[in-house]
């Protein structure tokens, strides 16, 4: 029996109010409560956060990194989705 048999958790920390939680790393823990306590000790020793989320690593579904091109291209070739696509009269202001 080994620590490595314990579940792996992904840790997210909100640095301060108004910001979203950001992934900061992972750790092993037997359950969510201990995972939270360990995350506090490991990732917020210097006031790095005001809130912590822990998520079982196995619960994360991810896109395939190899699929990068076909998977993400549609957004990129629709350049009319970007404000810079549009030509406006030079004299117009506030747009």
């Amino acid at each position, binding site marked *: 029996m080994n620590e*490595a048999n314990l579940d792996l958790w992904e840790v997210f920390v909100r640095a301060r109010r108004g910001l979203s939680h950001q992934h900061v790393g992972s750790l092993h*823990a*037997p359950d969510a409560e201990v995972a939270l306590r360990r995350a506090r000790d490991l990732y917020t020793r*210097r006031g790095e956060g005001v809130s912590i989320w822990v998520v079982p690593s196995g619960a994360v579904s991810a896109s395939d*990194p190899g699929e990068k091109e076909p998977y993400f291209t549609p957004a990129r070739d629709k350049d009319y989705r970007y404000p810079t696509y549009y030509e406006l009269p030079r004299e117009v202001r506030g747009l």
Partner: protein
Amino acid sequence: MTTLADPGTVSRFDALIAADERIEPRDEMPEAYRSTLIRQIAQHAHSEIIGMQPEGNWLTRAPSLRRKAILLAKVQDEAGHGLYLYAAAETLGVSRGELLDALHAGRQRYSSIFNYPTLTWADVGAIGWLVDGAAIVNQIPLTRCSYGPYARAMVRVCQEESFHQRQGYESLHTLAHGTESQRAMAQDAVDRWWWPSLMMFGPPDSASTHTSKSAAWKIKRHSNDELRQRFVDLCVPQAEVLGLGLPDPDLRWNEATGHYEYGEIDWSEFKAVLDGDGPCNRQRIERRTAAHRDGQWVREAAEAYRTKRTGAAR
């Protein structure tokens, strides 16, 4: 994570490296890249947790409550650094248990600097200034290393390491400006830690077996000798401010190169310590395996607690 050696895999990996993009855990990567990283990150993680021992030696004998609180925080940081790094290694498909087994069995190494003893309180200061100082010079370029999880762990480590170096320097400065015997103790510590600190950068470029491949893969961005020179250039003026000497009669400023020249490093000592003949090699591993054994009941209790909470045994 895939480690196929087919041409498509290699070219995609090569393209990412060439574009100075980061490789992430689920990307395809050559097996040699993966094994090189596991070896390097594991050695780094092992160094962090073995490094708790020489300083932990002084926790109960720190000269004041202030110094004791500082040292406790530093040793706790080293444990944290070890955990960041083991987590980074685990993204490469190896378990922490396997890595610890490899450390305990001597199949993986840790930095040979931690095989030197901490004989006096001044050694704690000298380690902070020189050993952590050398570690920072080594680690700053690693924050731009091609493997994402390792680079991100290094960002956190470097931020925290800065406190380690400054507390050591402050402590040494206090001793160097104290009584005659305190000054002598500080000088003695610097005399003993200077050369081993220079050895922390590894063998000279002409003899390093890992540098060229790691450079091509952008794991290592500067050579051992470049980093060693950077460290010497930083330390000489800092030693002057301390009012302490560095134990090298050949140390001199070279106007033409804009760098300090330093004397010949005793690589036979480095090799002997690396091969297990340093002053504390056996003691460090014995202490580590004993700590692991003594902590077994905690791991078992955690597992039993998990089973009780979730009702699922493994």
